[in-house]
């Protein structure tokens, strides 16, 4: 295994007989393999190196090369990327499915089938995923010959077949697409005996807006406005990821000051999400006082966002080449004080939640996602970290100010110190034990084993082993503490300099991708620009994409009324997923 880790490219080339391609993405190895060896090559990387399928991009290149292209991109544990590409001939649009060997490819291949008409041969589940039943057969929106301006008629078709269980006493409970609360739309089909869930099958993509097609042919600046609106609560993560991908294509880099401002913004985004979620998880158990205070603190953070960027969701902060708003000294100082106060109040809130025995009782051992299952599904973000998987894009593939090895050191020197010199209240999870069994303070510390390279060394990544709702709450609480400290450190040592690097629209065909750690986990945008300087293909793989199957996997064995709680503990976006 170690040999492969040190030189995966060479080994894989030997194993697959593939050909190496150049890449604009730092740390990426691109290999082209013949179509027949695709599943085997993917399996070698996953089983041999322990890689995680990060995204799969299909492209319609029939105009240029006469074929479709499939690219499976893996994140490999030495903090690099590995992409396996192959050509699918236009006259027989089918490819051997990778899913039987790599389960994480399941949804990607179904999506490629819906959007491009590429048939994954041997795939265990060939139902529609993205396009629903009334979408006509043989119309593939992401093919280049699809004209979005012509309305597509609705057709009569067999209704979606749910994989329900049948038997004495098994009740089928359909829920949605519209839900009773202020929640996004999605359909859930439970098979339950009494109140116990036997199986859960989500049917999503109701909010599919066709963004990947819409953005094609648009300029890079215009594309950013659309990318920023893929999701409300991950706006900045999406914007920064898109900008970074574009910057790699343009061969430019955001100036240091812009990188720091982006990082501050990204951490603010994480804060308002996690703080709100910690409160919202209380709604799942009916602890309304926790909900109210989580929402209040979230609103205060969003007010700070609004004062900072003019938008409560941090929209309009990031631009290609840098940022559009500066963080002046005066406001930075004010923000620092505000954040210190909110951190203190959040400490009180978490003490309240963790101290509420009835609340914690509901959360413990509810919705357990086993670590090996999480690994097989390629789960990212809080869901992965609460199941013992040590991953965080900020450390593993550093970007913006996280790339700077200094950040970590600065952070360590300054961590947990407020401007007035007092220590921040320790994360409430620390030292509380949260009721005893199994919850040993802050999970495993930073680093984890087997990671040696990278600039973000020592970046604290809180993890837990239990994989239940409580673990996901505690991981969030720990991450909030890290974010508060990180923002204070970044504010304290902000470099001077320009906010934005100049650029001109590209004149050659080029592709690149970039990843950031959104509040929900790794967010990966793949972007290709053509010689006219407009977007040729755009692929968004948000954190919710690999995580949704995990929600369905964590539900069985729990009670029906516990599902909202489990769902909230993962806190996934439908909008991010459906695009």
């Amino acid at each position: 295994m170690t040999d492969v880790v040190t030189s995966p490219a060479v080994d894989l080339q030997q194993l697959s007989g593939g050909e190496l391609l150049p890449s604009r993405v730092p740390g990426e190895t691109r290999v082209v393999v013949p179509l027949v060896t695709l599943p085997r090559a993917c399996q070698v990387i996953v089983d041999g190196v322990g890689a995680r399928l990060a995204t799969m991009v299909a492209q319609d290149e029939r105009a240029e090369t006469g074929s479709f292209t499939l690219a499976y991109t893996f994140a490999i544990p030495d903090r690099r990327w590995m992409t396996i590409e192959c050509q699918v001939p236009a006259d027989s649009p089918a490819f051997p499915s990778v899913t039987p060997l790599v389960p994480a490819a399941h949804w990607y291949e179904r999506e490629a089938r819906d959007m491009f008409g590429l048939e994954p041969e041997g795939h265990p589940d060939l139902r529609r995923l993205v396009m629903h039943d009334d979408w006509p057969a043989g119309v593939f929106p992401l093919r280049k010959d699809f004209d979005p301006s012509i309305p597509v008629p609705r057709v009569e078709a067999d209704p979606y077949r749910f994989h329900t269980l049948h038997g004495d006493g098994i009740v089928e409970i359909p829920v949605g697409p519209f839900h009773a609360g202020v929640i996004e739309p999605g359909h859930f089909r439970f098979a339950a005996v009494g109140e116990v869930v036997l199986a859960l099958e989500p049917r999503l993509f109701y909010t599919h807006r066709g963004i990947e097609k819409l953005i094609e042919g648009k300029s890079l600046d215009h594309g950013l406005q659309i990318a920023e609106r893929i999701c409300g609560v991950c706006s900045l993560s999406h914007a920064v990821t898109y900008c970074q991908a574009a910057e790699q294509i343009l061969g430019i880099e955001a100036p240091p000051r812009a990188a720091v401002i982006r990082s501050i913004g990204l951490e603010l985004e994480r804060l308002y999400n996690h703080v709100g979620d910690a409160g919202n998880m209380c709604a799942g158990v009916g602890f309304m006082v926790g909900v109210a205070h989580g929402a209040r603190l979230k609103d205060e953070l969003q007010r700070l966002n609004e004062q900072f960027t003019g938008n409560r969701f941090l929209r309009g902060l990031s631009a290609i080449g840098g940022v559009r708003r500066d963080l002046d000294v005066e406001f930075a100082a004010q923000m620092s004080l505000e954040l210190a106060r909110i951190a203190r109040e959040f400490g009180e809130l978490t003490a309240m939640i963790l101290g509420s025995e009835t609340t914690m009782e509901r959360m413990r051992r509810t919705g357990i996602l086993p670590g090996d299952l999480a690994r097989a599904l390629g789960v990212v973000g809080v869901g992965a970290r609460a199941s013992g998987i040590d991953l965080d894009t900020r450390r593993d593939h550093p970007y913006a100010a996280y790339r700077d090895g200094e950040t970590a050191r600065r952070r360590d020197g300054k961590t947990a110190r407020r401007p007035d010199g007092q220590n921040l209240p320790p994360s409430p999870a620390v030292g509380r034990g949260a009721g005893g069994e199994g919850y040993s303070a802050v999970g495993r510390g930073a680093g984890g084993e087997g990671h040696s390279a990278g600039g973000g060394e020592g970046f604290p990544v809180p993890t837990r082993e239990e994989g239940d709702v409580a673990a996901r709450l505690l991981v969030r609480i720990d991450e909030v503490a890290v974010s508060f400290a990180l923002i204070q450190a970044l504010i304290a040592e902000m470099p001077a300099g320009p906010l934005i690097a100049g650029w001109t629209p590209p004149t050659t065909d080029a592709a690149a991708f970039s990843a950031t750690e959104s509040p929900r986990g790794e967010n990966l945008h793949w972007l290709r620009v053509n010689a006219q300087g407009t977007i040729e293909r755009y692929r968004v793989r948000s954190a919710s994409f690999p995580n949704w199957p995990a929600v369905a996997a964590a539900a069985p064995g729990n009670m029906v009324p516990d599902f909202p709680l489990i769902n909230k503990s993962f806190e996934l976006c439908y909008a991010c997923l459906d695009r």
Partner: protein
Amino acid sequence: MRVLRQSMRGRVGAHDYPLEPEAAPAAFRGQVQLDPNRCRGDAACARVCPSGAITVEETSTGWIWQLDDSRCVFCGLCADACANRAVSLSNAFELAVRQPDDMVTRAEFIRNEETD
């Protein structure tokens, strides 16, 4: 009980809007406004608008600048693009209306050869 006492003390975030007016922060990106004295009708704002909210239509005597709030996404690209600084984003956020037509702002310009 201690928890509840804390909770009641926390009633600091409450705001009285709409009973009392409350201004948006200075940085807030609200309704697009046009300074008619600066507008030269070069349509830079309309070209960059990602949602087609701003249109500039040439007429025989000048041009018509039109903003449709119902499409505007308040990104501020128009303000950045305008070389004459005629377009800016105000602090206005109370934009709710009953009639869709009320969301449209229209300004008709007559080209004045002397000032141009």
